[in-house]
């Protein structure tokens, strides 16, 4: 069944069949999964890749001369190339497979501790996830560098005038999320990167929330580092990517010591392996890496333009319906945003709404979304956050709206 009202050639019903979890019930009701910004669901094609790996060619990689090891190595390195092509990195060794976004950020932060000097400056944005604040605070404590914050506007966008004022020759690094996890704001990253480069600063973009919706082109962006998690883009948990320009990855010291990351070891001296292995100590999540590749194949087959167009329709539909509810306020109203709606109703606690609508089979996120500075800005304890994916439908949004209305009646 084609969805008549959508502008793209998009067979959502057939896509939904790829996701076994979408047919389960929660509390006796069909699951409506609107917590996609926390983690996305996994299509059968990715589940099959995981099962196939453990059923047919589970082996340690890069070392074994036997067939299984070579097959596993080939599949893992092919996955790296899929990631490289997806983000359009120049070289495959600029792709470091990590355990996720947080690991990737910490890897860069740790590397910069030997490059930063006292009183040099790092800029982060007020919209950041805690994982993109804490590592830099730790880095500043260690190096004596200073942390500066780009303030936000009421509509959840960044104050770009203030950003420009913060930039100086002291600025060494700028760290901003491509898309805000709490509000869905798409930040003007091209401008942020260009202006940072004008003063000679490097830029790391946290792409965790952007990657499920936007196909970032790291060369076109000219970004120095880009990080994502596979589990937000139909892949498994425990895997992610650090893209770094070759020149930067060569400059950064290794993050962890261990197997895989060495060239030669004696008790007097160790030489490190070349990129990317210098940053991939120990046995990686081989299966996870391969499944990450399968997830990218899956999403690319649907097409990111189709995904973006369809999700935007869901966003507009849900926004319009939600705003019909009296006393409902949406936080983050930038014209440029992904399919995320953060809201509260009057002074009802978001936890109460989340608890009631869970009983009706609806999964949303409630709380501060690991972005307490954003909540502090609005002087609220948290929000209810509904985040949509390409496998969601308008019918599900209708159920969600009904559930929210019911919760409101119960809680008012």
């Amino acid at each position, binding site marked *: 069944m084609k969805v008549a009202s959508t502008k793209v050639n998009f067979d959502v019903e057939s896509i939904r069949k790829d996701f076994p979890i979408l047919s389960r019930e929660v509390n006796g009701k069909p699951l409506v999964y609107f917590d996609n910004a926390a983690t996305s669901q996994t299509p059968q094609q990715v589940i099959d890749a995981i099962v196939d790996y453990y059923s047919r060619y589970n082996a340690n990689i890069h070392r074994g001369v036997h067939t299984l090891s070579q097959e596993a190595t080939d599949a893992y390195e092919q996955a790296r190339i899929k990631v490289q092509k997806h983000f359009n990195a120049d070289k495959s060794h600029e792709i470091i497979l990590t355990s996720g976004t947080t690991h990737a950020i910490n890897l860069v932060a740790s590397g910069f501790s030997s490059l930063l000097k006292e009183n040099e400056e790092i800029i982060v944005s007020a919209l950041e996830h805690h994982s993109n604040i804490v590592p830099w605070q730790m880095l500043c404590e260690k190096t004596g560098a200073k942390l500066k914050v780009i303030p936000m506007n009421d509509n959840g966008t960044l104050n770009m005038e203030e950003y420009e004022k913060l930039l100086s020759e002291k600025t060494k690094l700028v760290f901003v999320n491509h898309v805000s996890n709490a509000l869905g704001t798409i930040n003007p990253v091209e401008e942020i990167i260009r202006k940072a480069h004008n003063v000679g600063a490097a830029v790391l973009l946290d792409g965790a929330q952007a990657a499920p919706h936007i196909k970032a082109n790291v060369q076109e962006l000219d970004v120095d580092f880009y990080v994502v998690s596979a589990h937000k883009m139909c892949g498994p948990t425990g895997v992610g990517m650090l893209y770094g320009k070759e020149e930067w990855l060569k400059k950064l010291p290794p993050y962890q010591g261990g197997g895989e990351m060495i060239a030669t070891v004696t008790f007097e001296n160790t030489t490190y392996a070349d990129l990317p292995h210098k940053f991939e100590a120990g046995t990686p999540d081989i299966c996870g890496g391969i499944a990450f590749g399968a997830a990218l194949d899956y999403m690319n087959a649907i097409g990111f333009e189709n995904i973006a167009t369809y999700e935007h329709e869901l966003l507009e539909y849900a926004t319009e319906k939600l705003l019909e509810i009296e006393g409902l306020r949406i936080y983050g109203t930038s014209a440029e945003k992904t399919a995320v709606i953060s809201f509260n109703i009057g002074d009802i*606690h978001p936890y*109460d709404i989340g608890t009631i609508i869970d*009983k009706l089979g609806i999964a949303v996120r409630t*709380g501060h979304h690991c972005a307490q500075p954003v909540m502090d800005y609005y002087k609220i*304890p948290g929000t209810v956050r509904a985040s949509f994916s390409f496998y969601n439908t308008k019918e599900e949004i209708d159920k969600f709206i009904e559930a929210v209305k019911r919760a409101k009646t119960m809680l008012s």
Partner: protein
Amino acid sequence: MSNIKEIQDEIVDEFEMFDDWMQRYEHMIELGKSLPLIEEKYKTEDNLIKGCQSKVWVHANLEGDRLIFTADSDAIITKGIIAILIRAYSNQHPKDIIEADTTFIDEIGLKEHLSPTRANGLVSMIKQLKMYAVAYQTQLN
């Protein structure tokens, strides 16, 4: 005066009258309205229970040999949960509070709230009430 077990049974009986979760939650919300409220001056960082998505403050003081609890929360459902606990445990001897079991929570259909990983912190709330009881019990000895 009823003991903890009697009050717990009474609460279980009350909840048994309801057919579905909605009525149970509505009743819990009602119970939240009768919560003996904590005085504003006790709404301190120290009296906040950790491990909740919503804020829950609990204060305890000894009157004679009985422990009196007051509390508040910024979320209505959490307020209902703490109200149920306080109804059972307040105005009781610390020793009885320490020894009281908590299976009645399961029986009133709030089992899902008992999981230690749930963000509402029911387990932390029970732990906190019992901690107060332990602290005051040593005063009585």
